[in-house]
């Protein structure tokens, strides 16, 4: 599948994960790679871009027996963006699906 196209969707998935709870980088990459076929490494640039856009903030959490982990957290802007984008994506996906399924019906 086209990487550029996938990137926008992955962005939405990251926001969705963080909407449920704060995560550290590896957690996000791990969950995503289980569901979507992307290179593991691409999540980190994405997180950084989302942070630069002001959708995420980071904080360090001291873990017992290890270096502090960097956690990502949705900002208020991130929350709003997620809700808008989610609704938009679901509408879009529904239309696309309808269109594609109608086509296969025609052929049968």
């Amino acid at each position, binding site marked *: 599948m086209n990487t550029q196209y996938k990137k926008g969707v992955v962005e939405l998935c990251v926001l969705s994960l963080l909407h449920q709870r704060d995560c*550290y*980088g*590896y957690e996000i*990459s*791990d969950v995503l*790679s289980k569901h979507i076929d992307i*290179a*593991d*490494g*691409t999540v*980190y*640039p*994405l997180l*950084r*871009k989302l942070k*630069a*856009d002001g959708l995420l903030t*980071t*904080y*360090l*959490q*001291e873990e017992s027996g290890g*270096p*502090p*982990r*960097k956690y990502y957290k949705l900002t208020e802007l991130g929350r709003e963006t997620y809700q808008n984008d989610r609704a938009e994506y679901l509408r879009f996906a529904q239309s696309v699906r309808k269109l594609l399924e109608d086509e296969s019906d025609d052929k049968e």
Partner: protein
Amino acid sequence: MTKNEFMIQLSGELHKRNVLDAADIIEEYEQHFAFKLADGYSEEEIAAKLGNPVALAIQFDEPDVKKQKSGSRPFVIAGLCGVDLFAGLFFILLAAWGLVMAMVSLASATLTVCLFGGLNLYNLIPTMPYWCGAILALSFAALTVLLAVGCVYFAAFLRQLVRSFGRFQHNVLAGASGKAMLPSLTISPQLSPAGKRRLRSAALVSLALFAACFVLSYFVCSVSAGSLEFWHTWGWFGYTGLN
């Protein structure tokens, strides 16, 4: 590709592109390797799944990522210096108070030794019968302990205050340069539960002992001098109330 090769290539590409906070990025990938290795993957598998380091470095180099709020940094540092000046004076004041408390404790200890040992250096201690002095000495011994406990607690408090202020500074600077912040620290002293219990019981016992012995010494002195205002009888302040 091994982990080392991946890291060297990635950091080389990041530096070539002048990406900000390259160390921060490297750290994320280090952690990724650490987690995956713990799950039993080989370095080669992990590196292959991560993708091409050059392609990754390009993704970090996107123009919108580079925008960082670094313009406010000088102002933040200037403001922090002002705060430091004020807080520094405050810390000096607090430290001085701790020093005073320690000195009073030391003086009280000296007085205890002098009274018990019957030493009256330079006639600084007013005259009184030895047993009255001994009971008074006991009360001063208790006061010494009480103040020492106070010093220990105060030192722990001051230490934690300085640490939490340091953390606050770290976070302000991190915020100004867009780095991740550490959780802020509480200012209440960090003592172990057992240590806290011991300090508390030492303080309570010494306070009770101090109060009891002080009152008792008053009664013993009064009885021994045959007057409630025994200090007049013994001429403590250079005159006798009887004249």
